[in-house]
């Protein structure tokens, strides 16, 4: 278990819906090893994004245990979770979620600034160059294409060199060409930085690029296929 960076043990998630409590996750157990790339697949509403959020500490399990890098996420306060994420995790969302009032470079520098890195500005510039957006550093999100925004979001997620990269349908809002470019970049950098990647996707070709594919159906793991 020395290589396990993320462990989910019998995790359940119940959310309040309009018509009463809704059981989203029904006892998920999953261990993910360092540098592994894992694709979470399954139909819409199956609970894969919720599972990703549990792993990122952005959602709390109603029951069960989620451990990341040896930290029991359920035992941490909201602020402690935020501090934990600083160096440990990068997250990429389907809708990018860039801060609209900040330029590309400022967005990328933000997690480093929050973490107190003195060279945030320089590192952000370098990271943007890495994702091929050095020329867009001074542009606001609204001035960039979807693909450019997602590459900025990827730079922001990786600039702290996190041990774990969580990506929630990162190509869901992109056309095929842009989606493929972003994924190429993501897998290349993951390999380069040795990052553990957990990816939620609907696209079979993306899942096929992962070391392991976990299929979620109705809040449970329906299949766990090791492809490495």
């Amino acid at each position, binding site marked *: 278990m020395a290589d396990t960076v993320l462990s989910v043990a019998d995790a359940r998630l119940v959310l309040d819906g309009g018509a009463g409590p809704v059981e989203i996750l029904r006892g998920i157990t999953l261990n993910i090893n360092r540098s592994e790339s894992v694709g979470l697949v399954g139909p819409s509403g199956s609970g894969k994004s919720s599972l990703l959020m549990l792993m990122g500490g952005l*959602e709390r399990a109603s029951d069960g245990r989620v451990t990341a890098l040896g930290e029991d996420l359920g035992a941490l306060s909201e602020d402690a979770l*935020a501090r934990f994420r600083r160096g440990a995790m990068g997250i990429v969302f389907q809708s990018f*979620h860039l801060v609209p*009032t900040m330029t590309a470079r400022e967005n990328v520098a933000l997690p480093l600034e929050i973490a107190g890195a003195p060279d945030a*500005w320089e590192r952000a510039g370098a990271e943007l160059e890495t994702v091929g957006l050095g020329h867009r550093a001074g542009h606001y999100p609204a001035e960039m294409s979807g693909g450019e925004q997602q590459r900025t979001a990827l730079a922001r997620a990786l600039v702290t060199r996190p041990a774990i990269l969580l990506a929630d349908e990162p190509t869901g809002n992109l056309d095929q060409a842009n989606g493929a470019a972003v994924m190429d970049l993501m897998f290349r950098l993951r390999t380069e930085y040795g990052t553990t990647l957990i990816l939620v996707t609907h696209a079979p070709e993306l899942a096929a690029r992962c070391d392991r594919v976990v299929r979620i159906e109705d809040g449970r793991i329906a299949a766990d296929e090791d492809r490495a």
Partner: protein
Amino acid sequence: MSLALRIALREMRAGLRGGLRGFRVFLLCLMLGVAAIAAVGLVREAIRQGLAEQGATLLGGDAQYGFTYRRATDAERGWIASHAARVSETITMRSMIGVGDAFTLTQIKAVDAAYPLNGRLVLDPPDAVLDEKKGVPGAFVDGVLADRLGLVPGARFTLGGKTFEMRARLLSEPDSTGRDTLFGPRTLVSLSALEGTPMLAPGSLFDSAYRVQLRPGDDLVTLKRQAAAQFHGTGMNWTDSRRPSPGTERFTDQLSAFLVLVGLAGLAVGGSGMSSATSAWISSKAETIATLRALGASAGLVRRVFAVQLGVLTVLGIALGLLLGAGLVMAAAPQIAGALPFPVAVGLSVRPLASAALFGALTVVLFTLWPLGRMTRIGAARLYRPGRAGGWPGWGAVVSSAVVLIVLAGAACAETGRTGLSLAVLGGVAAALVLLALMGRGIGALARRLRPLGRGRPVLHLALAALGGPGGEGRAVMISLGLGLTVLSSIGQIEAGLRSAIRNDLPAVAPAFFLIDILPDDRAALLDRLAALPGVTRTETAPMLRGVIDRINGRPAREVGGDHWVLRGDRGVTFAETPREKLTAGSWWPAGYDGPPQASFAAKEGAELGLKLGDRIGVNILGREIEATITSFRDVDFSTAGIGFVLTLDPAALAGAPHTEIATVYATPAAEAPVLRLIGHDFPNVTAIGVRGALERVGEALASVSKAVLLAASVTLAVGFVVLIGAAAGGEGARAREAAVLRSLGATRATVLASFALRAALAGAVAGIVAVAGGVLAGWAVMDRVMNLPYSIAWGPAFAIVVAGVGAVVLAQIAFALRPLGLRPARVLREAE
């Protein structure tokens, strides 16, 4: 039913399920603005009606013939009596009431047996009379004055050296609007008791009035015309029950004009909120609009559909505003009626409510034309794309806005009756809105320039980005809060300036007392005795008569100079051998001059009246018309409260005219009581008016006026706060998303909250600073330019405004940031996907 109406009703039915959520700010702004204007209008209407209905009672008769400084001659009395059913004579003057060693100023009203012709005196005890008892005449003394002097019915006191006996406490006079006793409470005596005393000697300062009741069949218009012909050139002032108290009416109109304009400023602030709410609503309806357009609806139809919905909301907002305004006035009716010195019936009337509704409707139209214009210019394809509709609204909207603005300005001028003031205030509001919008952009530009400072400081970086980035938050804060704070700041600076002028600046150079009714024979003795009192540093005297400036170059003065204060009523006139002040033009008459009358006029007032050297000025003194040629202008500084006359004549021009002297006594506060005792005991016909007390009473009057103005201004601020809250509430979703993203990036809640608070504090501080700048500008303009008083910035109110601005914005932001911060990031982000 038209197609537009049908679609609009369907849309509204669907919208109502949301409980008018998006329109709370729209409705609140409209409601508060309309309520403020309606409330002011209703109170003003009540006062106007009170003055009109109580006209004859307040005046003391159907009409009044007034004389300054003299009583009517027998012939004049005969004419008045022959044109009236009943006549009552009253004389009013200032005098000193003395009990033992205590002397204080009082306003004497001496009345004949016919008084009062209308209404009745309220006395305690009620059946008291003024008749002489054991050779001592009776008097009714104002309750507060009696208490201050320890007088009770049966007690004796002196008036101008003559002994009187208090018979009753005077609780109310039917013929008083409260303005006539500003400089001393009332003592009512019998006219016969004053006859033969020095108080009515030639040259004494008193006013006589002959109130009449009309004979059956007579009318005021005819009688006024006959009286004008009969009394031409005698200095008679005519007043009648149609306008019993022009001064009160003018004061009420001025104050309510100002309050209406402050209310309009509130509506303007609200207008910005209504405009934002309308834009946000139209954005949220983009899909509906696009669908309608795709189905072939014309731009006009879409515009009508939305205009109908806005119209219904406007009617609702106005109705709520009228209800609130009327409700508040009705609830406070007893307090309002109690605060006024004459009876008023506070009630509902159509005109003020209609004007408030009109102002509300015009404001809505003005502030929603642009969003509606933008909506109809955008094609269906564009509307399907996300983002807010923005850009050029089209010439139609621009021209319509200009027309509505002109109508609004015209309505404001008509409502207030003061074109210059209305246009100045509306222009000021428009300029302030433009300036604030520019400052909002300025904050954005400054924040962008300062961004490098934020590097490595995430809280500051986020705040500067929020203010300087696209859709910067500064603009909304500046518009919503800036104008309200500017109005409040202006009032604060002006009020502080006036208070400072009254309390600090004037007394430093002002005399302690004005002495009036000094008989020329007593002058030398009085000056000697005053000079012997320790603490009396200086005494100045001047002869004084009172006269009405009625002609300029042979034409009626009012035709030439309009409503200038110098021409309003009678003025003090003096004569002198040598000039008291520095001449600014012309030359003084030579010593012993005995030619045609010459005059020296105050330079500033002369310039305002358009007078120049060689002009002829006609003045009626004691019924005698004197026409003098202006041979010099003088620099008269009225702000020192010293002796200053607008008009000085050469001594020969007034030779033989009975007159008294006035004096100013400069003394230390410790010397004031000895001065009063000296005057009271040894110069009983002289009246001493304490400047300190007078200034205090002016201060009290000012305080009640400023209270009313502050109340109206607080409506503007409240509307601004509603707009601010609306903007903060509207941004709650964006803040929730931002907080969730920042937390996903590792920011703690404290960091996120600090960032929200810092950006709010920065925007609030700039709004506060702009408001202070606006207030200082207004304070300087009013104090220095209008009132010729020294102005210095009142730092206390200025600092309070900045703190209030910062506090308001920070509170609003934090209030709407707490909920997003309490949410799990995953849930917020899931909703945003």
